């Protein structure tokens, strides 16, 4: 019985949302309530997860475990930005400027680093994956889109060439649409299994 309660709750909340979507005007009020609760719970879940993370790092500092210095950095940075946000206000331009001063360069550098790492990884692409319909078409397609990315062919302004470029740029539509439909079917069936209680991501 104890195990059945979460299954029932998941099933009922999912069904309520689905039914409310079909009978929209009549059940719109209930849908609003359910969504409101869901957003609150998701936000509290984020705070709880964050608290668990902070507790784990605090334990690491207290027990002076290997690499505790990084935990000091994490908790120190957390406290500074959290206390700053709560006292100055999260929309305070000065506060936001300091947050941006750290987030922006750190994240942009990580993304930039990904470009360097990709270049190194691409060197071993065919050694790692071998030759196949997938890798050959991938390699040729990547080369074509790199050439198009240079913008030199477009700058020639030859109408026939522009038509060919148009076709080439639209070609990935086929694969992308097929992949999206396939992924959509997978997601649809996963959603149905959750509502029916056949899949229990909240644990047994």
């Amino acid at each position: 019985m104890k195990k059945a309660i979460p299954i029932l709750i998941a099933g009922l909340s999912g069904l309520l949302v689905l039914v409310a979507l079909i009978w929209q005007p009549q059940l719109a009020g209930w849908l609003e309530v359910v969504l409101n609760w869901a957003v609150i719970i998701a936000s509290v879940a984020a705070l709880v997860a964050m608290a668990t993370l902070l507790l784990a790092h605090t334990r690491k500092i207290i027990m002076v475990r290997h690499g505790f210095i990084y935990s000091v950095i994490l908790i120190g940075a957390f406290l500074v930005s959290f206390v700053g946000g709560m006292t100055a206000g999260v929309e305070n331009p000065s506060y936001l400027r300091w947050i941006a001063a750290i987030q922006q360069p750190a994240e942009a550098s990580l993304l930039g680093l990904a470009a360097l790492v990709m270049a190194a990884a691409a060197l071993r692409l065919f050694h790692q994956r071998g030759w196949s319909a997938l890798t050959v078409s991938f390699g040729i397609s990547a080369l074509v889109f790199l050439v198009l990315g240079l913008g030199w062919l477009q700058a020639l302004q030859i109408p026939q060439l522009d038509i060919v470029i148009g076709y080439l740029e639209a070609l990935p539509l086929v694969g992308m649409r097929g992949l999206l439909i396939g992924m959509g079917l997978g997601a649809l069936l996963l959603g149905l299994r959750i509502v029916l209680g056949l899949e229990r991501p909240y644990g047994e």
Partner: protein
Amino acid sequence: MEPIVAEVGMQPEVSVPPEESETAEEQRVAQDLLLLRSQKERAEVLRNLIAEEGKAFPPAHKPKSSHKSWYRLVIGLLMLTALIGTLLFVPPPALKEGAVPAHVIALQEAMQALGAGDKVLVVLDYQPATSREMVSMAAPVLQFIAERGVSWQLLVTQPSGLWLAQELASTAGITPIPEAIYLPGGNLGVFALAIDQNQSSPLLPSGLSALNDYRAILLLEDSGSQFQVWMEQASPWLGKGRFLALVAKQDAAMVLPYYDSGQVTGYVAGTQEGALMAQLLGQQPMHLPHERALQVGLIIMMVILILSMITKAEADATGRRREEKT
């Protein structure tokens, strides 16, 4: 052509059906004993754990590359040097006219159809990492909207959007900087916003109208899956022709099917198309990330991919020759 198929997980593999005798044996035992459900479950756990012991597994997949990462360092440093050199010594080229893709023209037409009194919702849904690319596309479009006298609002869906909105507005030279409205809840928030016609939900921030009241919703996106959330949770509730998009180059392929199906009226992907769009709208294109450096980076990747093909072909030929000799 087999290895890659197996490698990426598309090779048909076969499962072995459980032996029937085993099942029958279990049932006999269960019938003989009167067990509580919890006891049965615990017995099942133990049975599984014991079954794991001594089970034959093929060896774990190890990366084929050497642990030494010297080639990574060499390529990384070479690339950095080439890019820094280009930035320091090569002036950026003048913007050239080129063929304008159909989706850019579609966006331009949708933008020019906007007039004073129309309401536009600008949704800022990108990460700080891609802000330079997004700002270079979005700033001229915002300037155009502001000049037209269109009434517009800035909606942000993630916390960092609060400062990204300030950065975008100040780069576009829009004063006073408009207040960014934060929509919590991720896809739940997007859905709540789309279905709420009366603005009665406490979830929705004040100052925001129902989505149907906006003539256009301009998405600034750098994530394909986040873009998909808008298409799935919001677009079915609105009529066609509402969504316009400015997306990072990485999402160009993701937007294609949604543009083809009419769920997005027009879009721009990447800084090059962004500059074209700015020209079409009669705005000054933003200072792009140095275009010559971008071209150098693209050429380096082309060379690397070609080298990868050549070295693999060479390795295969050597392998074949060795086999023939033996």
